[in-house]
């Protein structure tokens, strides 16, 4: 379970996340939305300790999330997929997966291939030579190699064609239902993401201005006023 209490995150003088308190179970399917600069990516990074200058507290399963110690926090059972820079372009698909698996169990490799059969076909290809959608699949598979209870994804569909967006979001739903892995995703593509998540949070100026069911957000006639 994630517990966020009075979280404030800063980049120098800029307050990106302002006094946010939340709690959610690990199996959750949650979307964090908001316009550019609303603090959604920063909030996501704070959940894995990726922001240095923070106050307040974040805990996962009772263990505190220590700022600037992403590599330790991940081992608590949190998978993190950054928006870009999320695969290693100079390594092949299989080498990428081995890098991720070396901290857990490389037998997960077969499970990753079962989940994303395309990756098995491309196992000897350099990750940098794959398409954006394929790289996103690889990035998710990398995060799954650490056997997370919950997966944090920063704009997993950014820059992808609509057909690929559907594919990626479908894969994420499957991960949630088949593996029981929770999903917390930051997305600009709100309507597509609302099909996947069951809870939605909207940030504005670093503060939570909406926290409720995804259907409730979808039903709001003034939905676009939030963004």
């Amino acid at each position, binding site marked *: 379970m994630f517990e966020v209490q009075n979280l404030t995150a800063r980049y120098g003088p800029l307050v990106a996340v302002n006094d946010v308190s939340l709690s959610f179970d690990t199996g959750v399917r949650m979307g964090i939305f908001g316009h550019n600069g609303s603090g959604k990516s920063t909030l996501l990074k704070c959940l894995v300790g990726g922001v240095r200058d923070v106050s307040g507290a974040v805990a996962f399963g009772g263990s505190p999330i220590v700022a600037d110690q992403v590599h330790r926090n*991940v081992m608590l059972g949190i998978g993190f997929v950054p928006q870009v820079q999320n695969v*290693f372009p100079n390594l092949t698909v299989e*080498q990428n997966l081995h890098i991720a698996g070396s901290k857990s169990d490389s037998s997960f490799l077969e499970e990753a291939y079962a989940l994303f059969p395309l990756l098995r076909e491309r196992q000897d290809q350099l990750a940098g030579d794959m398409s954006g959608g394929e790289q996103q699949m690889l990035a998710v598979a990398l995060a799954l190699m650490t056997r997370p209870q919950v997966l944090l994804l920063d704009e997993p569909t950014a820059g992808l064609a609509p057909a690929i967006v559907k594919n990626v979001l479908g894969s994420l739903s499957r991960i949630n239902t088949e593996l029981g892995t929770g999903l917390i995703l930051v997305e600009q593509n709100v309507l597509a993401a609302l099909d996947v998540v069951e809870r939605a949070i909207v940030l504005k100026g670093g503060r939570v201005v909406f926290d409720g069911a995804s259907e409730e957000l979808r039903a709001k006639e003034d939905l676009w006023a939030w963004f």
Partner: protein
Amino acid sequence: MEYLLTVMVLIGINVILATSFNLILGYGGLMSVAHPIFYAIGAYCSGLLAIHLQIPVPLSILIGAGIAMVLSFGVSLPSLRVSGDYLVIASIGFQLGILHVINNLEFTGAAGGLTNIPVLNEGPSRSLVFVLLIAVVAACAVMLVGWIVEGDYGRAITAMRNDEEAFSALGRNAMNIKIVLFAIGSGMAGLAGALYAHYFAYVTPEQFGIFTSAALLTMVVVGGAATTWGPLVGAVLLTTLPQAITFLGLPVSIMAPLQGVIYTTLVISFLFARPQGLTGGTRGGGGLEAWSASAAFRARRRAE
């Protein structure tokens, strides 16, 4: 003959320096230019231990290398917080700071340098024996780096160089790898410095300044960054080239700047015409192309 043997000793020392610099800069992508200061630390510490404490030369050489290894924390710890251009600046500061200390301590011989350092070996075949020794050490250095960058650990180094954030997101600690790379690379540089000191019996602070950083960078870039054989090729080429120029019989006032012009021209030419260096192959196979691949990759992903 003695001249040729001395050039071969210099080649061997530069092979160790360039190979160890390549481990940090080429494979690790850690933009530190302070490598010559660890060369200096090895030379001075080993020399001082042998002069003042009468420690046997082979032992003082090993201690000198060990001290350089330990002091590498001076650069690896800042790399926890800064990278890229900022690490270049921090490393220059570290290098100039230590050089300033050496330059102003009477104990180290100050600007005049440290003299009367006991030599490692004596006798009529001194230089030949030393050449054989340095050849073995240089070969071991090349093999050690080759071994480190192969296999799982080598792939982890590549992944860290590609992207630290993604690497950490997989539960891997980039800092551990940085500390190891700096410690091994700096220890090797310290070993090269100690061997230099106990062959030439004399070191001065000006040997370890920014010009030496530029020379090492040229060796790595021209030979091929992030390749096993590149630094060796670069070291041989960049050590023999200035020696060859001396046979042109030019006045000293022209020779010194000419050497700088050659280094600069080579680096710029290779950056534009052959970024993979003389020995680098295709993308991912080494050279600056592999070195900078992640930056280009990220830029492309952002643009998509």
